[in-house]
């Protein structure tokens, strides 16, 4: 048990370390004075802000210090939750902006990931049943996975949002509303949530359906399936076993795909001007707000790592083989 998780945690720690180091290194790798070039590129109209920022940057970067000291300082401020100050939304600390955006991103991601995984697996298992289903579900699945997230989002926003007028095509809630625990606000929130959710859900769905279909064919060919068939077990039982066993690699697949889905969510948020992390990223890019960009990046990495770890735990709980091995029970 300790070994399984120890190894996983080690990889995640290493990944986090790599992400932080990338974050630290990239601005320093660029030619020229990073502070000057940053400020020059930032669209600041307030002279006082520029000065304040220059001082802040200098302290933060500490370019006069030796490299290892700079690196160490970077880590220290990171652990203090200090990700810098936003340029785009001066002088809000980056961490506040991110914490404000995270719930929206999670609200989109969690339901779409979980639902697309469940429904996609179900469709895939269904497809493996007959040639006819296979030939209809499969191409649709392939078209869906090949769809760029933002394009499907655009299509939905345009067709269901603007042309049909069924759902709002932009924003996270009505412009006139203030966040509150009221029915009007919540229903507005849900209305705005639906289209971005749907587009994320649909694109991810295709991949899961295809993956499950392939896995289940493999399982149906396996020797335990053969044995059950030779003993006259009904197809229902054999499919049930195959489905359960095919779910396990699909769970691993979920961990691998997580990064892609998160990226898709960022793009989808941009299309819908949905105020999650993706929207922050767009603002950061358009306003050359590098602190915001880096901070958001770190948060995304942390989120993905946590999600991976949760999947690992679930996997260990679901697959008896991992469990047995962890107990050292195998002879």
């Amino acid at each position, binding site marked *: 048990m300790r070994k399984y998780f120890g190894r996983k945690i080690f*990889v*995640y720690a*290493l*990944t986090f370390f*790599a*992400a932080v180091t*990338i*974050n630290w290194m*990239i*601005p320093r*790798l*660029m030619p020229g004075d990073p502070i000057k070039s940053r400020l020059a590129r930032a669209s600041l109209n307030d002279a006082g802000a520029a000065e304040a920022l220059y001082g802040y940057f200098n302290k933060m970067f500490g370019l006069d210090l030796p490299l290892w000291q700079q690196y160490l300082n970077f880590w220290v401020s990171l652990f203090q939750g200090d990700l810098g100050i936003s340029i785009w939304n001066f002088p809000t600390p980056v961490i506040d902006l991110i914490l404000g955006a995270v719930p929206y991103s999670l609200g989109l991601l969690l339901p779409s990931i979980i639902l697309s995984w469940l429904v996609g697996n179900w469709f895939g298992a269904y497809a493996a049943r007959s*040639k006819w289903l*296979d030939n209809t579900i*499969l*191409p649709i699945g*392939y078209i869906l*996975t*090949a*769809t*760029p*997230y*933002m*394009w*499907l989002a*655009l*299509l939905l*926003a*345009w067709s269901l949002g*603007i*042309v049909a007028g069924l759902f709002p*095509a932009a924003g996270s809630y009505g412009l006139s509303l203030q966040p509150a625990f009221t029915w009007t606000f919540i229903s507005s929130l849900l209305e705005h949530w639906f289209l971005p959710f749907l587009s994320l859900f649909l694109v991810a769905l295709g991949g899961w359906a295809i993956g499950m279909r392939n896995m289940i*064919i493999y399982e149906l*060919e396996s020797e335990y399936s053969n044995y059950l068939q030779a003993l006259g077990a009904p197809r229902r039982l054999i499919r049930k076993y195959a489905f359960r066993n095919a779910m396990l690699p699909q769970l691993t697949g979920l961990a*691998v795909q*997580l*990064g*892609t889905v*998160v*990226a898709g969510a*960022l*793009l989808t948020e*941009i*299309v819908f001007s949905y105020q999650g992390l993706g929207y922050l*990223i*767009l603002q*950061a*890019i358009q306003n050359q707000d*590098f602190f915001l*960009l*880096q901070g*958001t*990046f770190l948060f*995304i*990495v942390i989120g*993905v*790592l946590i999600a*991976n770890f949760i999947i690992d735990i679930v996997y260990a709980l679901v697959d008896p083989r991992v469990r047995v091995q962890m107990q050292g029970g*195998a*002879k």
Partner: protein
Amino acid sequence: MTAAQPLPDPTTAPEEPAVATPKAPRLEALYFALRNPKLVVGLSIVLLFLLVGLVVPPFLEHTPGERYAPPLLPPSAEHWFGTTQFGQDLFTQFVYGIRSTFLVGFLGGGIAAVIGMTIGFVAGYKGGWIDEVLNMLTNVVLVLPTLAVLFIIAAYVDSYGVVTQSFFIGMTSWPWAARAVRSQALSLSSRDFVDLARLSGVRPWKIIVRDIAPNMSSYLFMTFILLFGGAVLAAAGLDFVGLGPNDGMSLGLIMHQAVKWGALQLGVWWWFVPPGLGITAIVGSMYVMNVGLDEVFNPKLREM
């Protein structure tokens, strides 16, 4: 496990006596390839797009950025795909965009394939601590959310071209390929013919290139196709947020401009529908083609 090393078992040999197979396996693959609708349809669409991207641009009068027509014209005989708010011809943009889509796919997918396969082969063949280290590296890059990393990198680079973009994409999208190739190479490495090549005094890299890789060529090809698709989608994402190459035209960039200049609100669907459709068609056909290839090379799937 007591049954770790199964004893020889002649019955696992195919029931059909081996002597009775005079036809080369390659011909058989071709036979099935031509009869596989998925492969044929997928390949045709991909080739059609490739042809358009390669052949059409020289015949076009205008460059993709040129503002010469009335703005926001819907599709017509004159402007097949309509025009942008600035009077640029969208068909021209689309055709050039296809070009760069294929370029990113080939380069990005190619670089990722080279890195992934090299790491996969070395890890799978060498084993031991080399495998451990490479595995660790693979896992770390695998867990990193690729597009987010690309955002960071691209945001800091002032100006760059399609080739650089492909390079960035290639550098970040190889891990799953490395993993897949590793496990295949690992199982092939345990085959006796690899040991025999060692006993013939053949150097390791030569064994990998000449004995192991050719045995999984169809698998490698399919891996490349998937990497190609991934690279195209990643590039589209980068272009869409405005972090794409500064020169040239791409399908993602068309969508970026469409959103930036309010095509959605204006209902100018011809501005953002065709580019996405183009990407979906190219990548989707490649995926479908891949299934076809899988069925051709994998007799088990063929029966379905």
